[in-house]
């Protein structure tokens, strides 16, 4: 155990800090759940990419800088510590990206990854369907290979696809063997969202914006070259990609530590009001202890990964921990704000309270998406503790 950063790691931190100080947008960007905000975030991603900071852990040839996971944690600390914008293309970069690196052909990697790193291509997910939510293996959307083997014909419906109204591509699972059931006979495909036969219908989320969408496929032709991994192996491809690393990358500790810092500031600025409810002080302390625990867990895990350990079902404890912590922090902020909490960003009396309201609304989704916390608890009980099904 050696908890000092190396000179190289310190230099990297300094470089990232200096770059962010010089390049951060002066005004906060509009919400990326709007067309305008989405495009602003795309521009910002391009800027990050040009500095080779958009995907620091990817190899240089793919537009990254070949950083290890400790350097990635450092990047994230500087990024979120500086209050930089949310990352708009993470579903592609962090869910599809590693899958392509592991299962994609060289041609697919060259075609998709650099444009993903630069956010010239924005990616949406195609997992859930109206009747395949927590039970993802119940997928029925079909992708039938043409007789000449050149393309798939897609029919069906996907839903809860984040920012699909604005995205360029979709990746997801389709049933390529119509006689198959459950986890078998699925293929992992990349689908251009401007293809004929694709209809996107926005779904208004809790915040009133088009945060996600449902997508209909009517005889959509997708070239066979867009299949990632083997035909019928889609489930395996989707699940096998470094499950834990993926989960960790998507929800790095720095974002939550930043929220905790802001919450402590909010509490200190409003102590007279806040301390009338003694539970608030307790919750503020827990924001720090919880986010520190999450960060320490990430460093511990990254160290173990570097030594060749494999991380299994304990990844599910991560999902529960960050999502419930994030919700608790935002609930606490709402309680400190009191009557100001309900005010939207358009309300003059809100001052900057609406940032907490936005976060509070988004935090409601945490325990639901990416596998509900009930599903995660089942996974922990069955695969980590070995309890019977």
């Amino acid at each position, binding site marked *: 155990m050696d908890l000092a950063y190396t000179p190289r790691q310190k230099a990297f931190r300094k470089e990232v800090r200096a770059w962010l100080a010089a390049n951060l947008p002066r005004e906060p960007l509009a919400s990326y759940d709007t067309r305008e905000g989405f495009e602003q975030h795309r521009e910002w991603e391009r800027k990050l990419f040009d500095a080779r900071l958009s995907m620091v852990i990817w190899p240089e040839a793919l537009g990254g800088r070949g950083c290890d996971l400790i350097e990635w944690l450092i990047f994230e600390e500087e990024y979120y510590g500086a209050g930089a914008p949310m990352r708009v293309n993470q579903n592609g970069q962090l869910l599809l990206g590693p899958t392509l690196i592991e299962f994609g052909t060289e041609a697919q990697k060259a075609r998709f990854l650099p444009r993903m790193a630069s956010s010239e291509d924005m990616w949406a997910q195609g997992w859930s369907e109206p009747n395949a939510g927590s039970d993802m293996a119940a997928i029925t959307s079909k992708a039938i290979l043409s007789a000449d083997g050149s393309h798939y014909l897609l029919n069906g419906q996907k839903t809860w696809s984040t920012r699909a109204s604005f995205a360029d591509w979709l990746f997801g699972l389709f049933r390529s063997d119509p006689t198959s059931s459950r986890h078998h006979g699925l293929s992992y495909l990349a689908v251009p969202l401007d293809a004929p036969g694709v209809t996107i219908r926005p779904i208004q989320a809790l915040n009133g914006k088009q945060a996600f969408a449902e997508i209909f496929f009517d005889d959509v032709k997708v070239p066979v070259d867009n299949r990632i991994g083997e035909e019928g192996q889609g489930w395996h491809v989707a699940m096998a990609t470094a499950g834990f690393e993926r989960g960790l990358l998507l929800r790095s500790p720095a974002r939550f530590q930043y929220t905790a810092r802001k919450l402590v500031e909010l509490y200190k600025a409003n102590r007279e009001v806040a301390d009338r409810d003694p539970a608030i002080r307790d919750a*503020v302390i827990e924001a720090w202890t919880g986010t520190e625990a999450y960060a320490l867990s990430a460093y511990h895990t990254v*160290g173990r990964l570097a030594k060749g350990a494999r991380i299994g079902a304990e990844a599910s404890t991560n999902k529960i921990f960050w999502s419930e912590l994030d919700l608790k922090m935002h609930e606490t902020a709402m309680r400190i704000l009191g009557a100001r909490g309900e005010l939207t960003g358009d309300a003059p009396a809100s001052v900057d309270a609406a940032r907490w309201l936005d976060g509070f609304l988004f935090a409601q989704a945490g325990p639901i998406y990416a596998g509900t916390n009930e599903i995660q608890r089942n996974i922990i*009980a*069955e695969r980590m503790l070995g309890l019977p099904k």
Partner: protein
Amino acid sequence: MDFTFTDDQLTFREAVSRFLMTEAAPEMLREIWETDSGRSPSLRKNIAEQGLTSLSVPEDCGGLGMDDVAWALMTQELGYYAIPDSLADTAYVAAGLIKTLAEGAGARGEWLGRIAEGSIRIAVGHPINPLVADASPADLLLLAHGDEVHAVPRAEVGIEANPSIDLSRRLARVSWAPAAATMLADGDAGRALWAQTLNRGTLSVAGQLLGLAQRMLDLSVDYTAQRKQFGKPIGSFQAVKHHLADVATRIEFAKPVLYRAAYALARDEAGADARASHAKLACGEAAWLAARHGIQVHGAMGYTWEVDLQMFMKRAWALDASWGDRGFHKSRVADAILADGAALGPGHTFEE
């Protein structure tokens, strides 16, 4: 930056675990509970023969010279097997204080040598604890008089036993008279020793609480996988699964907090107080949740003397308020994070 243990440290932990598994089975704990002293000389002798009393003792005094980080693994094993002995008090907490003493203070060298060979029991009477654990069987007691640190032979100390619900704990109110001959340090030096000892005692208990949490989880998993109702193991029901998944999650996120605190102590970091308190809170909460959900999933059996769970539960309940209750530790964390200019948020987890 490497926040993991070395293979040697992990192998050592494995060996300790295997040793305690055979030396301290639950049946044996029950036998020890029945004795007047609550201590087993043969268990202590076996522990000493394994060299476990010598971990903290510097190598030039016959010990292994290990630090708080190694103890963060060791104390978890002591908790997991609910070892009814003051091993950690003597070999970790007291040894930590004594080795910090100036050369020639008291019988520093002799005490360290005897700790290493396992021929001395030392009880620590830190002012945070109103009663002293294991005062009666001790050979020597480290006691506080204001800032002063005294080393008092057992014969000079009056003892009033105060039974705990955890029969492994033997607590006493002590009476004694400070004398120049017993004083090891005073003033700033004494204050610093007690402050450092408070953190070490805190971590010692935190590690044990985490080990207890894991043991209660394991016992609960075993029980619910066996016990059948409605024709199925009750562990297949989601309501039961989710109770235990919550315990597993709490344990998972307490571990690295304990390790970070141990490192802070070993390096005498400025933020060590808050780190140690954080560890105690996290481990204590994990242990209490493991007890609460453990007894629930054991059903009525969990409320009996017969089932082993009780021994681990009671120890978790008892240790939680030793070396500072939650209010004390929460206040220390609050003082640190609410201070003006406190270094909070991303990038301050390791850097000072």
